[in-house]
C-alpha cells in the first residue's frame, strides 16, 4: 500500500460516513413522516428537521466534491425541489396534495433535464406528466368523490419495513456508484489506456538504453503509474500490474541496465493493457447503432468531441437531431408507440364503460 491509496481510503471513508449519515437521517425523516396510526402533529417538526439536515449534509458533500459553478448551483436547487416534492408525495395524507407535490417534482426534474441538455424531453415531460397525468388524476379524485379521509390515506402498509427497504436500496446504489466513480471517472478511460499503450509500443522500438529509460521511465516508472491511474488507481487490473510487472518490473525498470529485461517487462505491461481493453470492449453495445444518435457509443471516450469542461459535447440545440433520430432510425418504434397509445385509449374506454349486464367484481 502506498501513500496514495491511504489518502484515497480515508477520503472514501469520510465520504461514505457522511453519505450514510445523510441517508440515515433521510430514512428517519421519511419514516416519521409516513402517515401512521396515531401519528401526531408534532412529529412534523422532527420530520422536517431530519429531512433538512439530511439534505444539507448531502448538499455539503456535493459542494465539497465538485467545483463551484452555476451548473452546480442549478443542480442543487432543482434536486432539492424534486426531492422535497417526492417526499411530500410519499408522506401526504391527501392524495390531491400528493398529486400537486408530484407536479413540483416533475417541474424540478424538468430543470435537471435541461441541465442534461435535453430540452425537448423536458418539454414533453412537463406536458405529459404535469399537464396531462396529474390533471387527469385530479379529475379522477373528483370523480370518485371521496368526502372524507380514507383509512387508505391515513395508514401505511408496513411503514418501517417499506422505508427501510427503500433507503437500503438507495444506500446500496449510492455506495455502488461511489465505488464505481472513485475519482473523476472521465479520466479513467480507454483513451488514456490506449495512449499509454501506443507510447509503450513506440518506446519498444528504441534500441538505445538511456533513450528508452528517458522515454518510459523518466526516473519514476512513468508509464506504469500512468497505466495504473488509467485503470482507476485500484482494483483487479492495478493489482495485476503490481503483481506481474512491478514486483520485478519496478526494480527492473528503475535499476536494470539490461535493455532486454526492460523490454520484456514493457511487453508484459502491454499484454495486460490489451487484455484490459479487450475486456472493457465487451461492455460496449454490439451491432449497428443509430447513425443520427450522435457519438457512436462504440467509440472510445477519448475520441469523442469534448466541450471546454472536458465532457462530451452535447449541444443544447440537439432537439433537431433527436427528431432526425426518431423519424429515421427509430421510425418503426415510434409508429409502434403510436399504435400502443391508440390501443391504450380504446382499452381504457372499454374497461371503464358500464357494461349492460351487471358484472360483479
Amino acid at each position: 500500500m502506498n501513500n496514495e491509496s491511504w489518502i484515497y481510503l480515508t477520503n472514501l471513508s469520510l465520504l461514505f460516513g457522511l453519505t450514510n449519515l445523510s441517508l440515515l437521517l433521510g430514512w428517519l425523516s421519511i419514516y416519521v413522516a409516513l402517515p401512521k396510526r396515531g401519528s401526531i402533529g408534532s412529529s412534523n417538526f422532527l420530520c422536517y428537521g431530519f429531512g433538512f439536515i439530511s439534505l444539507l449534509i448531502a448538499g455539503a458533500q456535493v459542494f465539497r466534491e465538485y467545483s463551484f459553478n452555476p451548473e452546480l448551483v442549478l443542480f442543487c436547487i432543482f434536486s432539492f425541489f424534486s426531492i422535497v416534492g417526492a417526499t411530500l408525495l410519499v408522506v401526504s395524507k391527501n392524495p390531491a396534495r400528493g398529486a400537486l407535490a408530484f407536479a413540483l417534482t416533475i417541474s424540478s426534474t424538468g430543470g435537471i433535464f435541461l441541465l442534461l441538455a435535453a430540452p425537448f424531453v423536458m418539454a414533453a415531460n412537463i406536458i405529459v406528466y404535469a399537464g396531462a397525468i396529474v390533471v387527469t388524476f385530479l379529475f379522477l379524485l373528483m370523480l370518485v368523490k371521496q368526502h372524507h379521509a380514507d383509512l387508505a390515506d391515513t395508514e401505511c402498509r408496513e411503514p418501517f419495513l417499506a422505508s427501510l427497504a427503500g433507503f437500503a436500496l438507495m444506500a446500496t446504489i449510492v455506495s455502488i456508484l461511489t465505488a464505481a466513480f472513485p475519482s473523476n471517472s472521465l479520466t479513467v478511460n480507454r483513451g488514456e489506456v490506449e495512449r499509454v499503450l501506443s507510447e509503450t509500443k513506440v518506446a519498444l522500438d528504441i534500441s538505445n538504453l538511456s533513450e528508452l529509460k528517458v522515454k518510459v521511465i523518466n526516473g519514476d516508472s512513468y508509464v506504469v503509474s500512468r497505466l495504473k491511474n488509467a485503470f482507476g488507481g485500484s482494483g483487479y487490473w492495478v493489482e495485476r500490474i503490481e503483481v506481474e510487472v512491478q514486483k520485478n518490473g519496478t526494480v527492473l525498470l528503475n535499476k536494470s541496465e539490461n535493455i532486454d529485461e526492460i523490454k520484456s517487462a514493457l511487453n508484459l505491461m502491454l499484454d495486460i493493457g490489451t487484455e484490459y481493453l479487450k475486456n472493457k470492449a465487451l461492455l460496449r453495445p454490439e451491432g449497428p447503432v443509430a447513425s443520427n444518435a450522435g457519438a457512436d457509443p462504440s467509440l472510445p471516450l477519448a475520441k469523442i468531441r469534448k466541450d471546454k469542461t472536458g465532457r462530451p459535447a452535447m449541444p443544447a440545440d440537439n432537439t433537431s437531431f433527436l427528431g432526425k433520430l426518431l423519424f429515421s432510425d427509430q421510425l418503426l418504434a415510434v409508429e409502434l408507440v403510436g399504435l400502443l397509445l391508440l390501443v391504450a385509449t380504446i382499452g381504457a374506454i372499454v374497461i371503464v364503460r358500464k357494461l349492460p349486464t351487471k358484472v360483479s367484481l
Partner: protein
Amino acid sequence: MIPLMPLVGGLITFLIGPKVLRSQAHLPCILAGVASFAISIVALLEVSKAAFAANPELSNPASVSITYFEWFRSGDPNLVGDHLRKVGSLKAEFSLRLDPLSSAMAVMVTFLGTLIAVFATGYMRDHHSKVEAGYSRFFACVSLFIGSMLMLVLADNVLVLYAGWEGVGLCSYLLIGFWFEKTSASLAARKAFLVTRLGDIALFIGLALLWISSGYRLDFDGLLNLKNYDSSVGLACFLLFIGACGKSAQFPLHVWLPDAMEGPTPVSALIHAATMVTAGVYLLARFMPLFATVPDVQMVVVGIGTFTSLLAALIALTQTDLKRILAYSTVSQLGYMFMALGSGIKMESALPMLAISAAMFHLLTHAFFKGLLFLSAGSVMHAMHHVIDLRRIGGLRKVLPVTHLAFLFGALALAGIPPFAGFWSKDEILSVVHEASKSSNYPEYYIFMWAVGIYVAFLTSFYTFRAYLLAFWGDCKLPEEVHGAAHESPISMTLPLMIISIFAVGIGFALSNLTPFSIEGFLSKMPGYVVQVEHHHDWLTVGFATGAGVVGLFLAIAFYGKGGTLSEQTPLKANFAIELSKNKFFFDEIYNKVIVTPLNVTFVIAKVFDQYILDGIVDLIAHFPKMIAQLFRPIQNGLVQFYALAMVLAVTVFLIALARSM
C-alpha cells in the same frame, strides 16, 4: 400352417362375422377346420412314413422341427457357457414341431373340432333354424380355440406352448361365459379362469425353473435332454404337474370343470371333454423324460390321478344333471390318464413309453367317446329345450333314435365293455400301473392304485349306465317346455354323431390291435425311449377290469332297468354317503371355508394395516413439508404491496451481494 388357418378363420369371423356373414358365420371356422384337418392328416402320414421307415438308431428319426421366425431375442445368443448365464441371453423362436405325439394330437383336435363345429351349426339355432345371438362370436371363439390348441400341441418350445396354453384358457373362459347374461354362466367362467390360473402360475414358475436349470434353453430338445439333473428338476416337475392339474381338472383343482358345463354343449364336448382338458395330459407326456427321473413326483401324479378318478366317479353316482355326470366322468377319466402317466418311472425301462402310449391312447379314445356322449347330451338338450335333469326326462329312445344309439355306443365305450374303445385303452392303463408296481420301489402303492382303478372301472360302468337307462329307458317322460313335440335333431347334428360313433366303436380296436394303426408302435418312434418289443396283454388286469365293467353294467340294469324315478330308488342304504356324493363331497364349501374365509380375514387385516399404519407413515412424511409450508404460507396474504416489498428487499440483497463481489 395348421394352427394358422383356424386363427385366420377366427380373425375373419371376428371382423366380418356379425355384419357380413350373419347366419353363415360358421363357414370360415369349418372351412379352416377342414383345411387344417387335411394338412394334419398329410402331416400324420408323413410322420408315420418317416417313423416306420426311420432307423431307430438315428437320434431324431421322426421328429421335424420348423422354425418360422424369430419371435424375440435378448442378449447375445452367440455367447455360451458361463458367460451366457451371466448375460441371461434369451432367444425365442416361433417354431413348431411335428412328431408322432403332436401329429396324433393335431389330427384328433382338427377332426373333432371340425365335426363339433358342424354339430354346433345345428345346435346354436332354435327349432326354426334361426341363429342365436352371438352366433358369429361363438364360431370366432371356437376357431380361435382350435388354433390355440394346435399351437399348444405343435409347439417346439415352451414359450409357444405357453402361449397356446393361455390361448385355450382364454377361449375356455369366453365360451363358458358365452351366455354371459346368465349369472351362473359368468360366475362359472370366472371360476374356471381363476382356478386354472392357479395352475398356470405354477406351470410358468416350473417352466422358468426348467429354463434356468437347462442353461437357458427354450426348445424341447434342449429342455428334455438335461445333462445334469439338479434338485430343482423335481420341483419344476411338481410345478408342471400342478399346472397340468389346473388345466386337466385334477384334484384339488377339479372344481371348475363341472361348473364349466354352463357353456354351450358343443363347447363342453370340444373343450371340456376332448381337447383342452387333455392339454395337461399332453404336457406331462411331452415332459415324460423329465418326470421319469423323479419317481417321487410320479408317485404324487399317480396318487392324485387315482384319487381324482375315484372321487369323481363317486360324485357322478348321484348326480341328476346329465351333463354334470359326463363332466365328472371326464374328471374321472382324466384321472385315469394321470394314473397312466404317473406309472412312467425309470427312464431306462420301457415303462415311460408304455405310460405315454397308454395315456395317449386313452386320451384319443376318450376324446372320441366322451365327445360323442357330450354331443348326444347336446342333442338331447336341443330336443328337450335345455332340460337335462334326469328326474324330468326318460324313455327317450323312441323320440331320439339316432341320439339314443350314439349315446349307447358312447356309454359302452366309456364303461369299457369289449370291444368298444374304452375297453382297450382302459386295459392299457391298468396294465401299465400293474407293470409299474413290478419295477417301483413301492410295489404295494402301485398295486393299491391298480385295485382302486379296477374299482373305478366298476363305478364308471355303473354311473354311465345309470344315466343312460334313466334317460333313454323306462316310461317316456318329456318336460313340459317341449309341449310334447320332441323330435330328432337336424342332420347337421346327427351326422357328426354318426361319424363319431363309428370312431368310438372302432378306434380302440384299430389303434390297439391293427398293426398299421397301432398307437404304441407309432408313439414308440419318439426319440429317446426304450421300446418293449413284444406286446402282450395283461390278462389278469383285462379280466378284472372287464369283469368290473360288466358287473357295473348289470348292477345298473338291476337298479335302474325300469327307468324309475330317482327319488324312490336308492341304490345304497348309506344315506350319509349319498348326501356326500350329491354335494360333490362339499368341495366348494370346504374351499370357501378353508381358503376364501382366511383370505377375507387377511384382506381385512391388510386393509387396516394399509389404512392406519402405512398411510399413517406416508402422511407423517407428508406432514414435514406441510409444516414448513405452514411457516411461509402467511406470506401469501394477497396484499400486492407486501409482494412488492418482498421483491424490493430481495433486489436490495442481490445488489449488495453483487456490489461486494465486484
